[in-house]
């Protein structure tokens, strides 16, 4: 039952992230990586099948074309990689989640368009700040309702 509630909560938090990303993107034409940051945070709390499921849901909602794209592959792979390496991080989980969220966003920019950071440093900074803020909210919300002691990894 805990697992089912946890996955529903995770889907809701990712949906809020999608909503924020699309809302801000449509109005300000600035796309914040809320969803990626939330998924990486969730990878510290969910089990592998759960994080896979939530990531697929996020990709389903974010996909903008009827073809596979490098962007979606990276967005899908980063939370899984985060899940695999989180246990080896010698840090408090919440610090680790912020660090990996930051690294994930950096990897996204490095892989897709490094020049964007040079051309639009303020947009990049805004993306990092807002995404990490949402990542922290997601982590704190999930950990307060679903302590990791109850988790079956």
């Amino acid at each position, binding site marked *: 039952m805990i*697992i089912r509630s946890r996955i529903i909560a995770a889907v809701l938090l990712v949906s809020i992230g999608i909503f924020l990303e699309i809302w801000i*993107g449509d109005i300000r034409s600035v796309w914040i990586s809320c969803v990626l940051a939330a998924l990486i945070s969730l990878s510290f709390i969910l089990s592998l099948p759960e994080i896979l*499921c939530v990531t697929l849901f996020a990709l389903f*909602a974010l996909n903008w074309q009827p073809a596979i794209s490098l962007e979606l592959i990276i967005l899908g792979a980063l939370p899984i990689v985060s899940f695999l390496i989180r246990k080896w991080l010698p840090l408090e989980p919440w610090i680790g989640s912020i660090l990996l969220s930051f690294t994930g966003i950096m990897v996204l920019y490095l892989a*897709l368009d490094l020049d964007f950071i040079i051309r639009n440093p303020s947009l*990049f900074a805004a993306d990092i700040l807002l995404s990490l803020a949402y990542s922290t909210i997601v982590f704190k919300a999930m950990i307060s309702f679903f302590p990791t002691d109850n988790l079956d990894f």
Partner: protein
Amino acid sequence: MKKEFIFISVLALIIIALMVLKPIYGWQLRALLAPPPINWEIESSARMENEKLKAELAVLQNVKAQLPERPEKSIRAIVYSRYPLNFKNELLVNVGVNENVLKGKAVMFGGMIIGKVSEVFEETALIETAFDDRFQLPVRIGRNGVQALFKGGSLPALELISPTAELQMGDIVYSAAADFPYGVPMGEVKDIRISDDNLFQTAVLDIPYDIGGINTVFIAE
């Protein structure tokens, strides 16, 4: 534990099946989460109409002889979704190969060019908008028909303008590219300055619409 695993696996399989077979449900989900469309009739149709008339006037006054016939036919398309990251500025529309949409064709909104078709699928097509860094288009400016290169981006700009060309703020910018209808407005000249290498003039373009609020576009046939 086994039940939970089956539950999650079934959920994952359903999502994968939807992604592969019916991506349209994902776009509909996005549309539900997106802000409501802007009422362009009220917001900026007057300004866009003004720019259209200015472009027509500029074309009629100076480059009439060079005018090829302007294509009247266009395909109406509904915007399904937008590229969700900062690296591109693309729209997905609900027409594709089935409706004879061709790659490279001009895409218009409110009588203005807003981009071009960058990829065509069976039932959908991707539009590279004027706010995409990859978008470039030869254009002309104002009554004198000054040549320039439109370069897309978050701040669309006009480049390679002759240093001797006379430009004014508010001059209309209109299309002058092969495969594009001639004389369709794209915006107005805003800030004019000398390029960093001192060889050309450059200008920022003022575009009177918000790409995020567009729901219907026309694709030139």
